[in-house]
């Protein structure tokens, strides 16, 4: 199994832990991730706020690099994943757009590179049964809220990730690891996403709602698959306490960090010391060998 890996800009700053844990888990499961040499930003929300061509050409530049590598693309950041899929979708559906994007790139791109999120690859290439055999440690009944947010699941026709209202891919992984995937209604609610800097008040409002529901539903931690969800839900807990008086103290970890623990990888190598709310209780719980 070899993929072209697109880490995304946050992997170099706010989501170093995502980068570390994806690499560690891939290595342990013999998934070869060849990082795209010289990859560039997908443009994220600021690009689609600014212009359609810009928002499609920026991801397409990376898809073109991957096409030349002759591989499928793997992404972890949900925002990058969404933009890559959106570029492919529009380029395939509309010859006029393909022409414009290709003109901007100076080379033709046909929208043909397959794009997968890392968790999709785990279930597609390895599968729950084999994963279970690979785990040396267990989550020991840890109650986890699987949180998908917006950009993995929506729009359905563009990402084709899972059911847009009740996705279960991350839940399946949690159960496979011996955790309890709790039933809760905020799986695909928005955390405030890209408003982290501009409208912190909106992030506080929306993240408070997500965390509050997770806590009420009995979660001991929240598992995410997007760097923006992670930083909003984790780092803003102190602001939520100040603004709303709600002290959640709920660890928010990447699904790959939980997978790494169950594969016997040290929490340090998985970057878990970078979490703002300490995930120590989870690390201790998963120490027990299966």
């Amino acid at each position, binding site marked *: 199994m070899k993929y072209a890996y697109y880490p995304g800009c946050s992997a170099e700053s706010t989501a170093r832990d995502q980068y570390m844990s994806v690499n560690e888990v891939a290595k342990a499961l013999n998934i070869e991730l060849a990082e795209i040499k010289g990859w560039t*930003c997908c443009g994220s929300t600021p690009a689609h706020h600014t212009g359609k061509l*810009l928002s499609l050409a920026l991801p397409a*530049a990376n898809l073109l*690099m991957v096409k030349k590598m002759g591989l499928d693309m793997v992404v972890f950041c949900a925002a990058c994943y969404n933009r890559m899929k959106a570029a492919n979708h529009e380029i395939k559906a509309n010859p006029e757009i393909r022409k414009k994007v290709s003109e*901007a790139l100076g080379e033709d791109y046909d929208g043909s590179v397959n794009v997968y999120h890392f968790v999709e690859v785990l279930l597609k290439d390895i599968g729950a049964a084999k994963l279970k055999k690979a785990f040396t440690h267990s989550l020991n009944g840890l109650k986890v809220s699987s949180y998908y947010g917006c950009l993995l699941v929506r729009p359905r026709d563009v990402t084709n990730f899972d059911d847009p209202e009740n996705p279960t891919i991350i839940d399946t992984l949690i159960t496979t690891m011996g955790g309890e995937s709790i039933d809760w209604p905020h799986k695909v609610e928005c955390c405030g996403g890209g408003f982290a800097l501009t409208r912190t008040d909106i992030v506080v409002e929306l993240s408070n709602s997500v965390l509050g529901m997770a806590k009420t539903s009995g979660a001991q931690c929240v598992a995410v698959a997007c760097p923006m969800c992670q930083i909003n839900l984790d780092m803003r807990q102190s602001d939520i306490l100040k603004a709303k008086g709600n002290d959640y103290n709920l660890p928010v970890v990447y699904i790959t960090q939980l997978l790494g623990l169950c594969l016997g990888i040290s929490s340090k190598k998985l970057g878990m010391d970078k979490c703002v709310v300490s995930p120590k209780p989870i690390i201790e719980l998963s120490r027990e060998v299966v």
Partner: protein
Amino acid sequence: MTIVISKDKKADSLINDVREISGVDVRSCLQCKKCTNGCPVTGLAIVPPSEIIRRLQLNQEDDILESDLVWMCASCETCFTRCPMKIDMASVMDALRIMAVKKKASKQKGNVRLFNKSFLTTVRLFGRTYDLGMIAAYKAGTSSYLQDTDKFPMMLRKGKIALLPSFVADKKYIKRIFKKKND
């Protein structure tokens, strides 16, 4: 919602601009309000998404670009996902933001426009985003120096923010894309 209809408006211009930019025709909207009911910022914004569409249909366009929702929409795409008429409302909101910049509508709380500009400038210069540069440019422009100052030492300590920009991005395509964008 109260929409005052005046007859002396120029007909159909913003609805056409929106269609031109986004490829979305909002005239098929039934006003079922599933978009509004699912919108995470409905309770926070004054104008809900279904009202934006109704205003577009009625050519009440001056107010639309000044609506708080234009810069409060988080692009979560719940509206599009649940729309029975498959109206891509998230793309409509993108088109409205592009028109708001073009027509110099007011910047509104949070100044998302400045953030977008700062973000894209770092992408143009380095090929990837550079958080510190982007944050500095945004803070300088909004005089919000004190916001989140409590978080920076922690982020630096935990290595959650890079001190230097990335210099390994291949800017071959980036240069062309940004040049084309300005053509």
